[in-house]
């Protein structure tokens, strides 16, 4: 029983990281239907950006806050480059996108391996994240609180952007009915590019959070890509609130299973749950009603 609070907090933090990794996917996959398997490598690019920022700004107290927007822009630009050079030729061929982006992911991994020390690089945590917050007798690592706050800020910013800006309105219009959006004068090409930039940029932000939790190396993206896709699918495609709820549920399930069983079994059990859930409810938690005929 005394494990309830610690694992709930642990799980929420794990869910928050999963959410950060899935947020960009819910845009590029959910809204645009592009299966980008290189999303995990954009996350890696974000983590390496944090390392590079720390080479310039040595004080980690300052470098991590600076690294967040830098990682967003750098990963976003890589995403934009991918969209402009490859993805745009494949909007009607989702399975080809899958194969091509797996290849792009491998190229990015090997590039990172060639450029950076092969064992990975250290990303120093800011000193203000050292220590714990005591909640009901449990010493909760501040770093986990930071992950949750970061995820909350990203979600709030993204939903406000989608809801209140004209770009956001145009994105939603394109998602609901691309042809009709075009006839009203919306440049869907520009919208696609922008969506991909933002989606990839969010992966970069997730990468900074991930660099504070685990290793920063060429292989780090691989562990996030499949869980992130599952979270997006379980949440209901094109639905931000579904992604949030699914990420949190998976995170908490992982934490409790890890506590009750073992770290290995927890992965298996949590994803069996997701798969069973998708069998029962293939459309995910929430669905978008669209007016398109397709």
């Amino acid at each position, binding site marked *: 029983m005394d494990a309830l609070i610690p*694992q709930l907090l642990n799980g929420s*933090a*794990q869910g928050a*990281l999963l959410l950060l990794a899935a947020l960009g996917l819910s845009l590029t*996959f959910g809204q645009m*239907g592009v*299966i980008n398997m290189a999303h995990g490598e954009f996350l890696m690019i974000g983590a390496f950006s944090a390392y590079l920022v720390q080479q310039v700004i040595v004080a980690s107290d300052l470098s991590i806050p600076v690294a967040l927007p830098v990682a967003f822009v750098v990963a976003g630009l890589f995403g934009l480059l991918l969209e402009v050079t490859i993805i745009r030729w494949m909007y009607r061929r*989702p*399975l080809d996108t*899958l194969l091509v982006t797996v290849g792009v992911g491998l190229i990015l991994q*090997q590039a990172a*391996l060639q450029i950076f*020390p*092969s*064992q*990975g*690089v*250290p*990303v*120093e*945590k800011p000193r203000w994240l050292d*220590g*714990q917050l005591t909640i009901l007798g449990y*010493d909760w*690592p501040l*770093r*986990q609180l930071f992950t949750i706050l970061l995820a909350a800020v990203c979600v709030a910013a993204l939903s406000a952007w989608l809801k209140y800006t004209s770009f956001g309105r145009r994105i939603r219009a394109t998602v609901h009915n691309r042809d009709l959006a075009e006839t009203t004068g919306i440049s869907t090409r520009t919208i696609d590019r922008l969506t991909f930039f933002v989606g990839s940029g969010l992966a970069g932000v997730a990468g900074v959070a*991930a660099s*504070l*939790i*685990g*290793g*920063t*190396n*060429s*292989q*780090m993206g*691989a*562990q996030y890509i499949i869980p992130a896709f599952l979270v997006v*699918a379980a949440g209901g*495609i*094109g639905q931000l609130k579904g992604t949030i709820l699914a990420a949190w549920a998976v995170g908490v399930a*992982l*934490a409790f299973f*890890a*506590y009750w069983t*073992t*770290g*290995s079994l*927890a*992965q298996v059990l949590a994803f069996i749950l997701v798969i069973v859930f998708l069998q029962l409810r*293939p*459309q*995910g938690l929430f*669905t*978008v*009603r*669209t007016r*398109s005929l*397709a």
Partner: protein
Amino acid sequence: MSSTSKRMRVLVATGAIGTAMGLVLAGCGARAGDDTAGAGSSAAAGCVDTSGDTVKLGFLNSLTGGMAISEKTVSNVLHMAADEINAGGGILGKKIKYVQEDGATDWPTFAEKTEKLLTQDCVAAIFGGWTSSSRKAVKPVVEKLNGLFFYPVQYEGLESSPNIYYTGATTNQQIIPAMDFLASKGVKTLFLAGSDYVFPRTANAIIKLYAAKLGIKIVGEEYVPLDKDDWTSQVAKIAAAKPDFIFNTINGSSNVGFIKAYYDAGLTPAQTPIISVSIAEEEAPAMGHEVTGNYASWNYFQSLKTPTNPKFIQSWKAYPNSSGVTSDPMEAAYISLYLYKALVEAAGSFDVNAVNAAAKKNTITFDAPEGKVTLDGENHHISKPGHIGRINADNQFDIVWASDKFIEPDPYLEGYDWFPADIRKQLTDAAG
């Protein structure tokens, strides 16, 4: 049909393709093994040509994929050793011409490349591998084709092969010294944390038996898959168990996540120190200051004061593509090539059977950076000194403990009365 459900179908199809690809790959792997078996001994021997002034050797390391983070360095240090030997006149007067192959972190590929190196490139011996899975993939191939394979990494023991030479530590040269060190520190309670694969599982089975003998209580045991970095949930359990020491058999990048979670949970080396068997000079920098003050058990450290260590460090620092620091697996790889040179020169021939016969005399030695190692001709492992180092702020290790003499290799732990025969059989069978 809404676009949403269409996307869902795409996703399901994606999953199906992924699964299918996995099955095809698995199928290929199995078939490659069958072919190897089929090729049989007809291709063995006779194909190695040393009539000229060169001898061909094969280097087999993962230069791509997940294990490249570790194996690239081993490949580089093998190149350095080959250059050094060539500059000194070669082996039996013949210059080494190496063929570098990429194992690509894929075990069937290791088997295929081994066969290719032996039957098409006709190399006299192969050097490389890192994971036990890669070694287990290479083993049946070199045994079938009567080739030679030199394996440079500490591992879980319980293996020996007439066609493999092991230059890294077996368990009685790394795990057991670590436990002796803990006993000397008066440790009473121990928590076991490991990655979920054969090495940590086997090591922990041995640790538990020896701990019972030493009177150390195991207060917990946790495993996380190799490819997962987040250790927070498990570290919470360690913090609750309050052990005197943590025995860490985690491997790879997951170690970084473990150390970060350890530090974030407020655990410190002063109260709950960690002893690791996979964190060396190469890995420590990626963990930042959070790892400082903890311990590691190895045979070789860069900080060792031996006659040949300064030259090794200097050559490596000057070598192109150098990582700047030396570590135990690198040193074991460096030994492997020199050990092969010593074997061939003692045998007076590159022939596998002649080399094995020379080994049997138990007189093959090499003045390694860790000290003068001797090859055991029966089990093909080498004697090694046990060392415990403590990580300092420069990510180097201060030596805090050393075994009183070189430890003879005992891969099956036959000289240890606390290791029962039925468990030996069970673990050996389980390791395949």
